C-alpha cells in the first residue's frame, strides 16, 4: 500500500468522523421543556395548650398547585380545652416566604368566613372565632393560587402551619 493511498484513506476517515461527530452532538441535545413546575404545598395544624387542634398530621397536601387551578382543601377541628371562653385567631407560619404574595388562604367555620387573605397578611393573627369552654368547631381550610398570581410559586416546596393564638373572649 502506497503512502499516498494511506493518506487518502485517512482523509476520508477524518471526514467521516467529522460527519459522525456532528450528527451525534446535534442529535443528542435534550430538547427544552415547555412546562413549568407547580407549587408543592402542605397545610399543617398546630395545637396550643389552650386550643386542641386535630388532626395532628398534615391537613392536606398538593404537589403541583397552579394559578387558577383547583384549591387545596382540608378540614380541622379546634376545641377550647380551657375553663374560659376564648377568642381564637390563626397565624400562618410558612416554611418559605416566597409565596407570601401569591398564595391565598381561607378559613371557614360552616358558612362563616373566619379569614380570607394572602399569606403575607396572615403573618400576624387575624380573624377570630369565639369558643366556649370545651366547645369544638370544625374549620375548613382552603389554599389556592389565583389566576395571574405573582411570581414566587414556581417549583417551590412550602409547608404552611396554622398556629392558633388565643385570648379570653
Amino acid at each position, binding site marked *: 500500500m502506497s503512502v499516498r493511498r494511506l493518506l487518502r484513506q485517512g482523509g476520508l476517515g477524518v471526514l467521516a*468522523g467529522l460527519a459522525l461527530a456532528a450528527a451525534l452532538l446535534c442529535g443528542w441535545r435534550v430538547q427544552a421543556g415547555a412546562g413549568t413546575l407547580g407549587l408543592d404545598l402542605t397545610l399543617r395544624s398546630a*395545637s*396550643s395548650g389552650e386550643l386542641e387542634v386535630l388532626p395532628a398530621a398534615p391537613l392536606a397536601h398538593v404537589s403541583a398547585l397552579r394559578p387558577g387551578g383547583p384549591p387545596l382543601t382540608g378540614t380541622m377541628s379546634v376545641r377550647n380545652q380551657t375553663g*374560659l371562653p376564648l377568642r381564637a385567631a390563626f397565624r400562618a407560619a410558612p416554611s418559605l416566604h416566597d409565596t407570601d404574595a401569591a398564595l391565598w388562604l381561607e378559613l371557614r367555620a360552616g358558612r362563616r368566613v373566619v379569614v380570607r387573605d394572602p399569606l403575607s397578611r396572615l403573618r400576624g393573627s387575624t380573624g377570630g372565632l369565639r369558643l366556649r369552654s*370545651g366547645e369544638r368547631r370544625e374549620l375548613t381550610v382552603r389554599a389556592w393560587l389565583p389566576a395571574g398570581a405573582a411570581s414566587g410559586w414556581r417549583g*417551590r416546596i412550602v409547608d404552611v402551619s396554622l398556629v392558633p393564638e388565643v385570648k379570653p373572649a
Partner: protein
Amino acid sequence: MNLKRTRKMLRTGLALGLTAALAGGASWSAFSSTATNGGNSFAAGTVSLSDNDAGQALLSLSGAKPGDSQASCLKATYAGTLPASVRLYASATGGLAPYLNLVVTRGTDPAASFPSCGGFTADTTNYIGQGAGVVYSGTLAAFPSSYGAASDEPLASSPESWTQGESHSYRFTVTLANNAAAQGLTGSATFTWEARNE
C-alpha cells in the same frame, strides 16, 4: 512529492482541527447552560410548651381542715419543632407547704377542660412505685423547686423526649395533713413545666 505531501498533511490537519473545533464548540454549548436554585431558606427550630389553664389557678383550698382534698387537672402541650425533655418543678411559699400532701399523676385526657379531671386516665406505668401514672407523691415543701432539682418527665431513669403536637395531662391532688401545727397557716405555689432541647 514534498509539495503534495505537505498539502495532504495540511488538509488532514485542517480536517482534524475542524472536528476538534466542532466537538469543542458543541461541548461548550452543552456545558454552558445554567441552572438556578432559588428560594433557599434557613430557620431555627423552636421549643414551645404551653398549657390549658388560661391564666387560672389549678388548686385552691380555703378554710381547709385535716383530710380536706382537692384534685384538678392540667394539660400541657408541646408545639416546638425540636424534640425536648420536660421537667416539672414548683415554687412554694408560706408555712403550710410542709403540711400539704401532693400527688401528681400523669395521664391523658382527650376531652380536657381545665381544671376538670372528668376525662382523665392515668398512664398505666407505675413510675415511682406509688401507683399507675404517679410521678410525685410527697409534701408540697419537698417538691423540686428548680429545673436543676427536678428530673426529666416522666422518670429520671427513663426520660421521654416530647415532640411537636404531643400532650400530657397531669392530675394534681392536694390534701391537708392531719397535723395541729398546720392551723392558721397559708401557702401558695406556682408549678412550672420547662422544656429544653439539649
